[in-house]
């Protein structure tokens, strides 16, 4: 099984786009030996801050391929930003698959357990609260909350905060050079980021690093590319959106339109689409079924000209008063909330139309293939030794570069073009992920990776269907129909029952034959 380290994941994700993968963790758990010429030391010497906390997280991820097992536990150490009401802001990655979270005062080393109030893995943000009512007041007595500042502009200098071994503040100034839309950490999640240039040194608690403008929070460090000394920052507008959403007690998440568009710089293409030379807008190349845009009446092939009064140019940008040209998706993703009204102007067959609708969010569970999965184990059904799972991105990603051929390539393609399967009525992709050696599975040892179409005469659209269907064997046989070779498997229902009993707490250490919640 592939070892999985979140500490590395932060870096790997950051550097993937720059084709550079560090071989060693850049954030060692022990402080670096002091350099001979300590050039990175800020001139103001040792500072202390009352708005930063150390956050220690123990996490344990589920094994994607052996779904009844968990991987070995690991630790993450980072910084949290103290906010109003004794709340602590950290990145979502920090608390993914957390089993125990504690807050630590940098100077005194005093600790208190904490819990997650809200987490959004798409926006990579989490809000923590102390989990010890008796000690809370004393613990927070010397701390002062930080405010969020969304006024950053291109050219501003921000300061990355880190703490040293005994809590002294280390600050690194960085100049914001770009604001743009970029993918965050999990699949299908992109928001605006600030890009800034500067050198960040490795420290012991480098997971979540706050970035300040004056004494206010301007961003969190999303990733750092040490080769190019390029920091990507998760900016205040997204943080503010997250906090506002949390504040009403019900977290809705960031809305999306559910469209894909193509640029229209190509003159011949524009003429073909019936666009006038001075007409701006982008070509809608796909509209997600059931999403906000479809409900508002947007169709594939429309030219999207404006959203909520923001005109869209041929590249898909609008003019943001603060940041200049910025992807139009920010006006929906970053500026609007679930339930807000949206108004779009489109060009269809030469005519301008105004379409109105309400913004909604596509929940992770709405996807045919779950884009990410933290804190919960993957769903599975084990019957007689045949292991069935619902296809998820994390499952595919667990193969890494092995994903080049054979069944994994086929499953990856299903994940990349879900429309075909959705048309067939599938809610999820249920597939045979492994065959455990039992008497029931004799002869099937080499079979795996096939999509399940039918079990005992019941069409399988999600794994719950499969669990139900296995309750109804026919003439003492289970009949499993697959979409690929060998297309059909038979199991002896009596032997399956016997094997199931033996599998439980047998050599494979299986505690439960299924996980459906």
């Amino acid at each position: 099984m592939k070892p999985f380290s979140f500490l590395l994941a932060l870096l790997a994700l950051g550097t993937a786009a720059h084709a550079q993968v560090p071989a060693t963790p850049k954030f060692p758990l022990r402080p670096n030996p002091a350099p001979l010429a300590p050039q990175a030391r800020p001139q103001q010497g040792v500072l202390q801050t009352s708005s930063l906390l150390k956050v220690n997280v123990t996490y344990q991820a589920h094994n994607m391929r052996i779904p009844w097992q968990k991987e070995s536990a690991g630790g993450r150490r980072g910084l949290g930003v103290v906010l109003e009401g004794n709340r602590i802001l950290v990145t979502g990655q920090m608390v993914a698959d957390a089993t125990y979270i504690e807050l630590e005062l940098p100077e005194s080393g005093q600790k208190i357990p904490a819990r997650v109030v809200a987490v959004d893995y798409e926006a990579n943000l989490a809000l923590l609260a102390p989990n010890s009512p008796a000690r809370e007041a004393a613990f927070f007595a010397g701390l002062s909350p930080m405010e969020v500042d969304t006024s950053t502009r291109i050219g501003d200098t921000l300061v990355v905060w880190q703490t040293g071994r005994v809590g002294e503040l280390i600050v690194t100034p960085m100049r914001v050079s770009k604001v743009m839309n970029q993918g965050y950490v999990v699949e299908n999640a992109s928001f605006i980021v600030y890009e800034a240039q500067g050198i960040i040194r490795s420290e012991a608690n480098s997971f979540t690093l706050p970035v300040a403008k004056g004494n206010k929070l301007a961003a969190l460090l999303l990733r750092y590319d040490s080769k190019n000394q390029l920091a990507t920052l998760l900016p205040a507008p997204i943080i503010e959106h997250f906090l506002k959403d949390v504040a009403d007690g019900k977290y809705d998440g960031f809305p999306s339109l559910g469209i894909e568009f193509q640029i229209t710089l190509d003159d011949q293409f524009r003429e073909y689409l019936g666009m006038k030379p001075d007409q701006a807008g982008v070509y809608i190349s796909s509209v997600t079924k059931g999403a906000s845009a479809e409900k508002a009446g947007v169709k594939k092939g429309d030219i999207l000209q404006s959203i909520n009064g923001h005109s869209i140019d041929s590249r898909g940008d609008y003019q943001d008063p603060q940041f200049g040209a910025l992807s139009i998706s920010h006006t929906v993703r970053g500026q609007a909330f679930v339930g807000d009204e949206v108004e779009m102007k489109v060009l269809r067959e030469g005519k301008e139309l105004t379409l109105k609708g309400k913004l909604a969010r596509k929940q992770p569970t709405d996807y045919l293939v779950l884009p990410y999965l933290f804190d919960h184990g993957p769903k599975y059904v084990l019957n007689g030794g045949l292991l069935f799972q619902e296809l998820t991105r994390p499952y595919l990603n667990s193969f890494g570069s092995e994903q080049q051929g054979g069944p994994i390539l086929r499953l990856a393609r299903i994940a990349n073009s879900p429309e075909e399967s959705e048309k067939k009525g599938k809610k999820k992709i249920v597939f045979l992920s492994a065959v455990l050696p039992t008497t029931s599975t004799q002869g099937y040892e080499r079979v795996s990776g096939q999509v399940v179409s039918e079990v005992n005469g019941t069409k399988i659209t999600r794994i719950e269907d499969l669990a139900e269907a296995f309750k109804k064997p026919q003439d003492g046989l289970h009949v499993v129909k697959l979409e690929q070779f060998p297309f059909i498997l038979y199991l002896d229902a009596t032997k399956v029952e016997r094997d199931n009993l033996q599998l439980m707490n047998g050599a494979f250490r299986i505690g439960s034959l299924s996980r459906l919640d």
Partner: protein
Amino acid sequence: MFCGNRPFLMKMRPLFPAFAALAFAATSPAQEKAPAAAAPVESPIVETPAPSTPLIDEWEGIVNIDASVLVPDYREPWNSGAPSGGSGTGFLIGKNRFLTNAHVISNATKLVIRTTNDPEPHPARVVFVAHDCDLAILEAEDGKPFEKLKPLTFGGIPKLNTEVIAVGYPIGGDRISVTRGVVSRIDFRPFSHTQVDSHLAIQVDAAINPGNSGGPVLQSGQVVGVAFQGFSGRVAQNVGYIIPVPVIKRFLKDVEDGHYDHYVDLAASDFAIENSAQRKALHLNGDGVGVMIAEVEPAGSVGGILQRGDVLLSMDGNPVLNNGLIRFEGELMDMNEVVERKFAGDKLNLTYLRNGEKKETEVTLKRFDPYVKLGEQYNQRPRYVVYAGLVFQPMDKNLMDAHQISDPAANYLFDNYLTEKLYVERPEPVLLTSILADEVNTYITPYANSVVDEINGVKIRSLKDVKTALAKKGEKADFVVIKLLEKGRPLVLKRDLAEAAHPKIMQTYNVPEDSYLGENEKD
């Protein structure tokens, strides 16, 4: 045979590509050794007909074949390709008929035969070639000099652990060479020349090196095989493969009518019956006979006859066992061996169970074409269509390798061409492989290596369709509209601009003809 569900071991590599052999032929003088064949040979298994005839004369019919080759250029399909060359071995099997490997003479533009004692080079030409079993027959342009030579004769399948010798012109010298070993194994093997065909092959531990290709492997003075492949690198030691006599004889019989028809195929995949539930569901009585038919190719010999879930019981009266093996000529072999020995148009009697009912049928065997695209192809001029700088080429292995295509739709199509029956919808998928940049197409250059779905409303099922569809006027007559698979937008060219730019682009990029659709197709 059909290899759909029998993946090859990755260690299989073509050991004796002709160009590699040539590289070795140019050895430094320091490596020159006394020609092995000149040494006194005392072999108990090679009969010398008369003591007065030296062995070397006996082997005068084993010849060196020198090939000048043009390797087709699938990136610039209008170019001639790169000149190259190589050498291998062949041997006389009849009047002016030399047997060798197909890979020795593939893509050859000029062939020369030399014997070990005659300094004269003799120009030769290919009479028959069978890429699917890596065999070919050559003839000298002037057969006279070879009239006095004695053709070699064929033996049978040698027994395990009996001695054989390999004779030929491998690296290490110019004159004829002999190596000796035993028969190690007799098994079905993938043939690396096409990479998609598998046939019976014999493994020997006699040293077989680049240049041995096409040479005879002898036992008791008779040919028991043709040396053809081994492992490159250090993955295995003393492993060489030879094409056995049944495969050779099949080839010789196939060409008796003047042309080669290729192997025929059941084009069905079997799945072993080992599970008791399977046995019960398929109504078997447990006598060990019958294999499940898991997949039937509609375009194959049993398409429309056998079905998924049928149990194949026998072929020509020979029972097929639960694991897909059949007893054939006294040995247990893959059931496909029965089909292997037959020819296009031959009949095959099958008995099978369908829903517990025993049925009998006779099928007429034929070649299964779609999988040829998945294998390496030779002696083909690359086909293409160029329009306003857009280069269209049909998808096959040669193309995929040459362009190192990474487009997910193209790779999926190639990988699942058979398994997902994509060949039914697109018998010959067409890729937009490159864009010869010009003002007219500058915005579509990022779309290179995409699969072409439709042009001007016409579904593209083969390269020929591209040519006709480009000429057709679609919904918007002023535009040429190209739809790609899994790309968000259609590619659009204004017809007048495209047609004006076309000749200029052809000239700039040195493309002499704007299409080549194949020998039998008029451009």
